[in-house]
C-alpha cells in the first residue's frame, strides 16, 4: 500500500536523536497493516567504518519496525562528487530519490516524512494503510503538531509505540497540542515536509525531488509547488490523521544556524517554479545506475554475519581468561594472541561494502588465512589481496596474490599485521620473546610495504575513487610499530587489549624534524 521514505545518518543531528528516531520508527511501523508496506531509510554518507543509523539503534526498535524497514546505504564515496558543492553531510533530495527509485512498485503511495514524527489516526484502530488504501488519487498533507521536548523525552517508552500513541491521543486534548498552522499555497500547512502523501506514479512522472537543491531547506516546499501544479490541488487528510513532531530545538541541528542558516533559494525553488517536471534530471534522478546496498534488521544482520565469520575462524576459549602485558620492558615483544585479536580486526571490516577488496600484508601466515576465513564467513565477497612480496605460502579460495604495485590499484581497504612469523598458536604471549632473524626479515617487508602504501595512498587509488582508503594496523599498540603506524595514519588512541588501530593516511607523514622539535619542547 505505501512506502515511507525517510533519511539520515549515523551522527547526532539535533537533540537526543536516538530516542526521537526510535519512537518515530516504531510508531510508523505501528500504523502499517499491509504486508507490502515499507519504511525506506536512506542512510546517507555515514562513514564506512560505522554501522548505519538504524543498525546502531536496532535494540530499541520493535520487531514490526525491523520487519518493515529497508535500509539503503549511500556510501561517502557515492556522495563524494557532491561534497565540494555543499556544506551539508546528508542531502535530502538525493536521499529521498534513491529510496523512491528502489521503492516497492506494488505500493501505490509514497509517504514523505522525517525521523521524529508520529502519525495518529483520528479513528482509533484505523491503520494508515487502511486510510491510504481507501483514498482517491491526489496529493495529501496533514497539519503538523508539536510535542514539547519534556513530554516525549520523559514519558515515551521507545519500545511501546501503541502506548505512546495512546498517550499522545490523551495529551493532544489535555495539553491543547492540536493547533493547525496554515500557510501560503502551495504549502498549505507549516512544516509540510513531515507528511506528504503522493502517488508513486506521480513522483516518477515529475522526476522525483529536485537534486539541484543541495544547500538544505525548502525541498518539501519545492515538491509541494511542483505537485500543486501537477495535480492542481493540495488535499488535506486532517479528517483522517494528525502528525506529531518531537520538538528538538534545545540544541540546534547542524543545518540550523539561526539567521545565518544557509538555504536553497526560496525564490528559485518555490515562487519561480513553473513546471512540475525537471527535464534535466529525467534520466538520472535517484541514481538508477548506482548500486545501493540494502541492509535489513530482521535477517542477515551485522551481528549474525560477524558471529558466522568468527565461528568459522576461531574456536571458543577453553580457559576463563588469558593474559598479556603492556609493561614497558616488553616493548620489543611482538607476540600476540591471534584468537583474541581477530574479533577486533573483524569489527573493523563488517561495515564496509560486501564487494570490498582488502589488501592484507602480514607476518603471520596463520593470521592471514584465518582472517580470510572470517572474511568470507562474514559474507564479504571481495577478494583478500596478498602481495607476492610477502612470500606467504597460502592456499585459500578468498586470497588472490599478485604484485604489490598492481594490487594497490585494486585495494579498497588496507590491513597490516606486525607479528612474529615464527609465533605459533598457543605460544606464550608477551613474555619477553625476541624476534628471530626470520621474523625481522619479514617485518622489514611488512614495514616497507606499509610505508609505501600509506605515503602513496592518494596516488594509487582505484580508477574513479575519490575518498581515501582506511588503514587497519594489527599489533601496533605499545610496541615499536605504534609510532611507525601513527606517523602515517591518523588513528585514535585505542586500548592495548584490542591490538588494533585504524584511520586514514595523514596528508603529510610525521617527519623526523617534527619529532625532534616535539622532543625538545617536551624536555624544555
Amino acid at each position, binding site marked *: 500500500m505505501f512506502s515511507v521514505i525517510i533519511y539520515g545518518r549515523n551522527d547526532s543531528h539535533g537533540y537526543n536523536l536516538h530516542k526521537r528516531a526510535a519512537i518515530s520508527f516504531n510508531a510508523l511501523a505501528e500504523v502499517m497493516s499491509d504486508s507490502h508496506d515499507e519504511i525506506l531509510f536512506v542512510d546517507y554518507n555515514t562513514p564506512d567504518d560505522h554501522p548505519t543509523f538504524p543498525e546502531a539503534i536496532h535494540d530499541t526498535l520493535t520487531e514490526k519496525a525491523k520487519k518493515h524497514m529497508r535500509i539503503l546505504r549511500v556510501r561517502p564515496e557515492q556522495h563524494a562528487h557532491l561534497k565540494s558543492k555543499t556544506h551539508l553531510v546528508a542531502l535530502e533530495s538525493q536521499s529521498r530519490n534513491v529510496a523512491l527509485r528502489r521503492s516497492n512498485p506494488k505500493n501505490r503511495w509514497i509517504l514523505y516524512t522525517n525521523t521524529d514524527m508520529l502519525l495518529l489516526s*483520528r479513528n482509533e484502530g484505523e491503520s494508515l494503510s487502511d486510510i491510504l488504501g481507501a*483514498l*482517491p*488519487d*491526489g496529493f495529501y498533507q496533514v497539519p503538523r503538531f508539536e510535542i514539547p521536548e519534556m513530554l516525549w523525552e520523559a514519558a515515551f517508552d521507545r519500545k511501546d509505540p501503541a502506548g505512546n500513541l495512546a498517550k499522545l491521543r490523551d495529551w493532544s486534548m489535555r495539553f491543547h497540542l492540536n493547533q493547525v498552522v496554515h500557510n*501560503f*499555497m*502551495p504549502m498549505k500547512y507549516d512544516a509540510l515536509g513531515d507528511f506528504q502523501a503522493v502517488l508513486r*506514479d506521480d513522483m*516518477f*512522472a515529475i522526476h522525483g525531488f529536485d537534486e539541484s537543491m543541495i544547500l538544505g531547506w525548502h525541498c518539501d516546499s519545492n515538491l509541494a*509547488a511542483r505537485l*500543486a*501544479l*501537477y*495535480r*492542481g*490541488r493540495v*488535499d*488535506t487528510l*486532517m*479528517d483522517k490523521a494528525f502528525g506529531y513532531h518531537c520538538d528538538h530545538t534545545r540544541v540546534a541541528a547542524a543545518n540550523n544556524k539561526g539567521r545565518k542558516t544557509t538555504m536553497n533559494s526560496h*525564490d528559485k525553488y*518555490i*515562487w*519561480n*517554479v*513553473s*513546471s*512540475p*517536471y525537471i*527535464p534535466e534530471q*529525467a534520466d538520472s534522478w535517484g541514481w538508477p545506475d548506482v548500486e545501493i546496498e540494502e541492509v535489513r534488521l530482521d535477517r542477515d544482520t551485522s551481528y549474525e554475519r560477524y558471529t558466522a565469520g568468527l565461528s568459522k575462524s576461531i574456536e571458543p576459549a577453553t580457559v576463563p581468561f588469558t593474559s598479556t602485558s603492556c609493561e614497558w620492558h616488553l616493548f620489543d615483544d611482538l607476540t600476540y594472541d591471534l584468537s583474541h585479536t581477530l574479533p577486533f580486526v573483524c569489527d573493523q571490516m563488517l561495515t564496509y561494502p560486501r564487494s570490498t577488496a582488502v589488501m592484507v600484508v602480514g607476518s603471520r601466515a596463520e593470521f592471514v588465512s584465518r582472517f580470510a576465513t572470517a572474511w568470507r564467513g562474514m559474507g564479504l565477497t571481495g577478494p583478500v589481496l596478498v602481495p607476492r612480496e610477502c612470500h606467504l605460502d597460502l592456499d585459500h579460495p578468498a586470497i588472490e596474490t599478485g604484485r604489490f604495485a598492481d594490487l594497490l590499484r585494486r585495494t579498497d581497504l588496507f590491513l597490516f599485521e606486525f607479528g612474529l612469523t615464527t609465533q605459533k598458536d598457543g605460544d606464550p604471549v608477551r613474555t619477553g620473546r625476541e624476534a628471530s632473524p626470520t621474523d625481522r626479515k619479514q617485518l622489514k617487508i611488512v614495514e616497507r610495504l606499509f610505508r609505501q602504501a600509506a605515503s602513496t595512498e592518494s596516488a594509487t587509488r582505484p580508477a574513479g575513487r575519490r575518498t581515501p582508503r582506511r588503514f587497519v594496523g594489527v599489533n601496533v599498540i605499545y610496541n615499536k610499530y605504534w609510532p611507525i603506524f601513527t606517523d602515517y595514519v591518523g588513528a585514535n588512541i585505542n586500548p592495548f587489549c584490542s591490538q588494533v588501530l585504524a584511520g586514514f593516511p595523514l596528508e603529510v607523514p610525521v617527519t623526523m624534524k617534527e619529532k625532534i622539535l616535539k622532543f625538545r619542547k617536551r624536555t624544555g
Partner: protein
Amino acid sequence: MSKPSFLRSALEGASGLWQKRVRHPGFPDVDAADPERRGQALYRRGRYRMRAGEIEAALEDFERAIELLPDFAEAIASHAECLDMLGRSGPAKPEYEKARQLWAEDRGGTPDRSYVFRQQGRLTFEVESYELALKRIKTGSFPLSASGNALLARGKPEEALRFYEQGLKVKEKDPAILALKGEALSMLGRYRQAVDAFNASLNGNPRAPETLSGRAIAFAAMGRLDKANDDWRRQFSLLPETQSAARACVALRLADYEAALPELERAIEKSPDDPYWRLYRLTALKRLRRPLGAALPPRGVAAWPRPLFDLLAGLSAAGDVLAAATTEGRRAEVLFQMERFREVAERAPPAMIEYAAARNELSQRR
C-alpha cells in the same frame, strides 16, 4: 507616564501612518443571478470568514453555496472543516469523504496531454489562495502559472492566457510557461499562435512529451496531420515505459493499434477500474480485426461509457447509443465506434483521441 510607555504610545500612533490596515474585501457576486457565480462568491466569503474566525457565519455561506451547487466539492470540504473546528467531527467526516469523492469523479484529460487538463474540481480555493499570494509575491511566476492553470482547467483560456503572459514577464522565455500559453491559445482556437508558442517552448526544452502533444493537436487542427504525427511519434519515443496509459493514448491518436494494444493492457493492469482503457482495448482489437472476447466494462460502471461497451458487444443499436450521447465529445466517441470517421474529423474537438485517430484512419484509407 513613564518614559517607555510614552514612547510606545507615540510609536503606536505613528505606526498607523505606514501600516496598511486589512481591508474587508467585497463580494459583489453573492447576489448574482447566475448560480455558479453566486455559489463561488459565497464560497469565497465563507473562506474569508473562516480565516477571520467567524466559523458559524462561514458555515452559513458554505451551506448556501452547496445548496446552489450541490457538486461544489471545495465548499463541502470547507464546510466539513468548519464543523470539525467546532468539535462536530462526526457530521464532518462524511462531508470530507463526499468532497474527495466528487473530485475523484471528475474525469480529467488524457494522460498524454498537459498535466493541466488532468486537474479536477472548480479549484476556487486554489485560485483564491494564489490571489492572496500574489499580493505578497511580486517577483515569482509560480502563483501566476498556478492561477492560469486553474482557470485553464476550468475552461477559461482567455483569463488563463493573461496570467501566463504576466508569468512570462517574470520568467522570460520560460519553456514551461510558453507551453501553457500554447495550450491556452490552442483552446481559444488560435492554432497558429499556439504552434509558435509551442515552438518557442520546445526550443528551450526539446524533450518535453506534453509540449509535443500540445503542438501535435494544434497542427492536426490546422490540417497538418503529417507534422502532427511526427510530434506524436517523437512524444511516444520520449515517454517512459512506465507511463503506459499515456503511451497508449499517443498510439491511438496515430491509429497505430498494434502499438496501442500492449500499452492498454498494462494500463488496465495498473488501473483496472478505469473504463476507458478497457474500451480502447476493445476498440484496438476491433480495428485490428481480432476477436473482442467479453466486451464488459469494469464493475460499477452504470453510466457513460457503458453504452459504448453495449454497442461493441452488440447489445445496443448504434442509433440508440448515439441518441444517448449528450455531449459533443460523447457523440464523437460513438461515431468513431460506428467508423464514421469523416464526421468525427469534421465535428469532434481536435484535442480528442478520436479526432486524431479518425484523421489518421482517413489518411490511411487514402
